[in-house]
């Protein structure tokens, strides 16, 4: 079980929660389960969500493991110059 | 429209071409003669990327008609090095990394060559105002100014 912190706008979709608990071993499973539990997340996942694990932002490494006790933070996937 | 026959000298070579009366020298160089070193950044004489030397005078080739080159001497970036020996300005631009994307570089080199021909020992301020007709968006000009200063001292010593 990992605790996942949502950014403000995503929290609103999760019924005002800023944190949710999910049983997931890696980013791929996290997204799958989030979409199952919160169908409203799906367009956000399609658009791109980045996952910060202990402060390091992962944008594409869906195989990245989610260590127990790690701080998991969801962020919008960004555009750059 | 009937073409205009032009006989001119480009980088020391005699060159003949036909161009339209409303065609710029920049278009002639790039599209008819394959000399694509001069770039079109604006087409209105604001950016200096198409700088060439026409009878010892620095001009934007986008503001000169191809027909106006008749009987005159044109110097472009393609004529700056002697064979495989780079001009000191070219060498110093490389050493100082005075270019990033490099698209303004031919114009800057031509403008700097013209500047040093007229003022072999310019101050920093004279370099900055001498090159103020050329836009660079990458470097902030710092390394360009230093490269020109360095080239000037090398050329004086030569």
């Amino acid at each position: 079980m990992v605790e996942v912190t949502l950014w403000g706008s995503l929290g609103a979709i999760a019924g005002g929660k800023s944190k949710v608990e999910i049983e997931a071993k890696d980013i791929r499973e996290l997204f799958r389960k989030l979409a199952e539990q919160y169908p409203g997340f799906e367009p956000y996942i399609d658009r791109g969500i980045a996952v910060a694990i202990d402060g390091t932002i992962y944008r594409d490494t869906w195989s990245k493991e989610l260590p127990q006790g790690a701080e998991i933070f969801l962020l919008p996937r960004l555009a750059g110059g | 429209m009937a073409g205009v026959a032009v006989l001119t000298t480009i980088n020391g070579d005699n060159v003949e071409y036909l161009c339209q009366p409303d065609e710029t020298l920049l278009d002639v160089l790039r599209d008819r003669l394959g000399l694509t070193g001069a770039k079109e950044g604006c087409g209105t004489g604001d950016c200096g990327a198409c700088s060439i030397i026409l009878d010892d005078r620095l001009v934007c080739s986008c503001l000169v008609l191809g027909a106006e080159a008749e009987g005159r001497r044109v110097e472009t970036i393609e004529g700056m090095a002697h064979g495989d020996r780079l001009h000191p300005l070219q060498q110093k631009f490389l050493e100082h990394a005075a270019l990033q994307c490099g698209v303004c570089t031919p114009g800057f080199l031509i403008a700097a060559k013209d500047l040093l021909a007229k003022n072999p020992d310019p101050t920093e301020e004279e370099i900055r105002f001498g090159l103020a007709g050329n836009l660079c968006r990458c470097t902030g000009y710092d390394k360009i100014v230093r490269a020109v200063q360095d080239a000037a001292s090398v050329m004086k010593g030569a």
Partner: protein
Amino acid sequence: MNFDPRYSGRNFTSVGTRPIRPDGVDKVTGRARYGADFNMAGQLVGRVLRSPHAHATIRKIDTSKAEKLNGVKAVITAADLPDLTDGDAAMYDILDNCMARKKALYDGHAVAAVAAVDARTARQALKLIEVDYEVLPHVTDVDEAMKHTAPLLNDAIFTEGLEEKPVRPSNVTKRTQFGHGDVHEGFGQADYVVERSFKTEQTHQGYIEPHACVASVSADGTADLWVCTQGHFVYRQHCAQLLGMEASKLRVTSSEIGGGFGGKTHVWAEPVALALSRKAGRPVKLVMTRDEVFRASGPTSATSIDVRIGARKDGTITAAEATLRYSCGPYAGMWAEIGAMTAFACYRLENVRTVGYEVLVSRPKTAAYRAPSAPMAAFAVESAVDELAKEIGMDPVEFRIKNAAQEGTRSSYGPVYGPIGIGPTLEAAKNHPHMKAPLGKNQGRGMACGFWFNFGGQTCTDLNIGMDGSVSLAVGTVDVGGSRASLSLVAAEELGIAYEQVKAVVADTSSLGYNDMTDGSRGTFSSSMATISAARNAIKILRERAAQMWDIPLDDVVWEKGHAIAKGEKYGNLAALSLREIAAASGKTGGPIAGHSELVADGAGVSFATHVCDIEVDPETGATRVLRYTVVQDAGKAVHPTYVEGQYQGGAAQGIGWALNEEYIYGKDGRLQNPGFLDYRIPVCSDLPMIDTQILEIPNPNHPYGVRGVGETSIVPPLAAIANAVSNAAGVRMTHIPMSPPRILAAIEAERGG
């Protein structure tokens, strides 16, 4: 495989040196080929017809007269680019932006295009196209567009992210929110509170090379595209999707690129050129004019930002909040969202909240511009921070140092920071001689901090070792400012050979696997990671070949300083084999030697900078002069320090232009009034002083050499640093960027009058 990207301290041989770039000679001799420098046999000239209206319904387009003109080979409208986006809203916006479908949404929006035998015929043909417009009301100002009374630009847009689903459409596409703690409580603890509103005007990336491409579509459905772009693989994907092609049948070659800064991450003309070529059956060259570049490509957001920050007497910030409104052009974006994330990223805050609003306006589609959205947010926040320090009576550097984020701080956008450089850049600025230099009359000093995330992403690199021992490095990230030099240094470092033995090229889309764009300061970060990985894979093969040549076990062969060495006393008499020797024998030991790497370079380290500048203001005219400018920034590890300095200086110069001069000026008719370099004035050589740089190296733990991206952060602090300097010089707080002479004069006069 099994590549370990973690940082490990080492002594470098090649990395950190300053050799001449491999593409340099071509660029100083005029030989380098940019977008417009390429031609194909039988090529036609493409031209685009653009809307003169800021907002208009397109009732009908009659192209029949243009089609009949001698020399015209194809005329296209949106009908020739059918919607194949299959519900992908972002791609639909790109398609609509390439060629208006039902409505023209800004002055300069493409409505039709022609391909003709020469430019003159193409221009004549454009004049023969008849477009029947129904002109609609428009809105170009971000605050005006948010009002209920504003003309609606898209009646299918209902604001996303509101607690209650809106019943009426709006020009606000989305509301986003970030932060933590309780700002209400935080402000309750504050002894001082500063509250200010700020505006910034729209600017353009201002690359000197206009967009240019040559497209050639064959009757068998295959195609070639030569184009100046920051990401040829992304262009291929987008063009293939919009034209209904298979990506593998479209080969995209990136030309040398004459500047991008985010502006060449987006297709505009390329799908149009391909559609023209497909219809005409001949290659088409399409080059934008400068006027088109300004009217229809690029720009960054115009913004309106409110900031409120509170602090105790001892200088501790107790709460910070900001509301950020960013213009997106006529299509949804996430520009305010990025501003909201970056606004307070430099600080350690217990209570912080930012809210962003994405706003549609009748202007070109906003594109990324170097650390997109961050400079405007930093301008507002860093101005307020300076004012707050002044109210408390603290030195602005000390105030920032006291509140700076550090390792373990929860960032204002959410995650907790690893090792970061904001504190060290502030300390370095504080100790810099610039801080102690005397100032004259009407002169002011300003400073500001800046943050950018930096990206990684999908990356692919091939490293081929020739039989002569020279190394070809094929990378897929476009080189926008010297990355071929830095990547050659990395390959040389890893293999233990000379820099000159490596030649790096940017491969086309058919020669290498997919790569994300060169954006988000990712070019050197990502491709160096892939290069290190590829080199390590090649070294394994080199060791295998040496083991074979010696006929000893692989485990007994190590790689050191460009040589295979037989390890252990029993091999005492075996002379080391150089890379050249192993390469020369490769035909007899198993064939070509190469290392490949396909990876996702994640874990880009965030980057911080502190800038200091001195400005003189003429109180009679409002004119300004930049007297001195210093950039301090964390590079993680500077691979080629000269090009790192170049990024610092270039970002600062762009920021100076933005702060003092550059702005899109729209008339009441919604038309852009200054679409040229004469009236949209970017800094020239005589406007600037030398720009001092100081590179700090706080290693990124997620890169083998500690590299962080360096390209973007340098544009984040200048708006604020200059605003603080001008405010100090003029004795009045400047709240509207650019601080052009009329704005400064008006502020001074308002202060005198009031």
